[in-house]
């Protein structure tokens, strides 16, 4: 058969274009929002505000980047917000008790990671669909946090620790450095390691991945643990930025993180998506809120406007998807 002429070759850039075009449209969406905002509000394009937006986007991004890996395996982690709350409260306590930020940071990361690992165990060993397992985990974590905090607030941390969230280095906020570092690490992990490749393969077809010799359960455990640890990292940033922890901080973090992943072009069916897309997704969400604050838009309108922007962003993204038969 091969001596017959092969079918017409795909244009050489077609592989790139599928991703590049999508990326382009997503960036275009972000750019359009920026354009509109800079026309409407002169303070928008100031360096200060750009750094401000990046710093705000960082918190969503930390949570969303770990979540991206989970979504790449066709899973979901609804417990990230509750995980941030619990990890922050535990880390805060440790810093208070021991006076050592280092121990606190370790506690936060560790607590987040353990929660992630438990999610992973439920998904792999107990074979509970991730959506439900992590939804159950969300309630369990909330219960534990409510009990542990008993309506109290932990606040007031050492100045050194506060630098992580609110400090500057060479004129840039430290969370922005962290954001860039984790964006690089995350992208490298997903695109340039064998583990990353295996994660894509698992998302695309878990059965085939297992029968190709990929230790699917181990990789899933890894992915959920990483997602949990990233939530732990977010809790540290939160703690050092807000100088306090209370039981309800996670509630408003989960849906925006999921939205950032999805706006970023990662498919809930697994196997498709990038960390960089998630970064752009976080950026778009943050820009929308920033713009509404800058323009002093009536608070009642904010959910509506956010909803419309999400639709537009995703629709632009869909436009560029290759149609599947």
């Amino acid at each position, binding site marked *: 058969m091969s001596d017959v002429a092969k079918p017409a070759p795909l244009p050489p850039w077609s592989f790139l274009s599928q991703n590049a075009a999508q990326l382009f449209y997503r960036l275009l969406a972000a750019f359009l929002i920026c354009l509109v905002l800079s026309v409407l*509000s002169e*303070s*928008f394009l*100031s360096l*200060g*505000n750009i750094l*401000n937006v990046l*710093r*705000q986007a960082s*918190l969503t991004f930390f949570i969303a980047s770990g979540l991206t890996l989970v979504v790449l395996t066709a899973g979901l982690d609804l417990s990230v917000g509750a995980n941030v709350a619990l990890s922050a409260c535990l880390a805060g306590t440790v810093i208070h008790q021991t006076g050592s930020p280092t121990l606190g940071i370790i506690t936060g990361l560790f607590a987040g990671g353990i929660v992630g690992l438990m999610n992973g165990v439920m998904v792999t060993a107990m074979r509970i669909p991730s959506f439900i397992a992590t939804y159950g985990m969300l*309630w369990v974590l*909330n219960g534990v946090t*409510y009990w542990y*905090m*008993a*309506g*109290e*607030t932990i*606040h*007031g941390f050492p100045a050194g620790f506060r630098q992580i969230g*609110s400090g500057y280095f060479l004129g840039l*906020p430290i969370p922005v450095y962290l954001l860039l570092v984790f964006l690089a690490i995350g992208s490298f992990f997903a695109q340039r390691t064998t583990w990353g490749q295996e994660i894509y393969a698992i998302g695309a077809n878990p059965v085939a991945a297992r029968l190709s010799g990929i230790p699917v359960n181990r990789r899933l455990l890894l992915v959920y643990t990483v997602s949990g640890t990233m939530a732990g990292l977010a809790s540290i940033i*939160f703690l050092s*930025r*807000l*100088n*306090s922890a*209370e*039981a*309800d*901080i996670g*509630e*408003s973090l989960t849906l925006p993180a999921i939205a950032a992943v999805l706006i970023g072009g990662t498919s809930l069916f697994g196997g498709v998506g990038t960390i960089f897309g998630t970064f752009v997704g976080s950026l778009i969400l943050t820009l929308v*809120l*920033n713009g509404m*604050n*800058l323009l*002093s838009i009536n*608070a*009642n309108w*904010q959910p509506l406007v956010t909803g419309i922007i999400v639709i537009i962003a995703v629709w632009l993204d869909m436009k560029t998807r290759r149609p599947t038969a």
Partner: protein
Amino acid sequence: DGETIAVFTKNQTNPFFQTVRVGADNMAKALNAKILHYIPTKPDSIPEQLSQIEDVVVKKPSAIVFTPVDYKAMVPGVEKINDAKIPVVNITDRSAGGKFVSFIGADDYSLGLETGRFLLKTLGGKGNVVIIEGVKGSLTNVDRVRGFNDALKENPGAKLLASQPGNYQRLQALQVMENLMQSNAQIDGVLAANDAMAVGAIEALDGANRKALVIGINGTKEAIDAIKSGKLLASGDYNGFAQGCLGTMMAIRSLRGQPVIAEIVLKPTVITKDNYQPFDVSLEQRTCPSFEDASKLGAK
């Protein structure tokens, strides 16, 4: 003796309601009664509190101390309690309907007004201010923000730059403040509808190396510490501890056939650098006011 009192609060996360619950526990211990707490598992959930009322009515506690998660939407629930002939004391938010043994609360409007006035007086009656609102539609927020606005009206020299929601959440208040600082080069005062948001705003100001006077409301531990260290200008005292104490006291007294006070609206106290000392003790160490003191605290 040995009565069971069911205490309803709005959520498990807000420190304010913790002070209410500790107050109720304290008073019950002193009067030898038993307390059962009912708190929605989802913070401020209307359907859940309605279900809890329905469940509790089956259980028939001796009396109920009740904070509605929404002062209007919970009226049918209160009527159910009334129908079951369980005496009920209303605390914190004044219910829009139903029969109560007594109402104990603080006046959100005057709290907003008084703390707002204090800020503006410190600013000399002029300057640029912003309001960070709580959850849209909640009674406390509506009244507090109305108080802020009326305080502003009394000071025509002051200018309101923006009034944006922080949903009583620290992070949201911080981000709103960061964003507002981008479009407003000069902000002199911040009126936050609760302490968590006030502290969030302070963190934002610190992060940008800017200064402004900030006030909050609730008189939480965190706020007292911030006042002590000079970061927060003032906090309006909502006195949840006294509300919990007095609500429980009135419920038990009515069960025991003792006289009760039909309505106590605690006078607003603005906690500042000059008067924070009495508030700077841990909850457990505070003592409930006596019945005699109660009348002085603001009975009508």
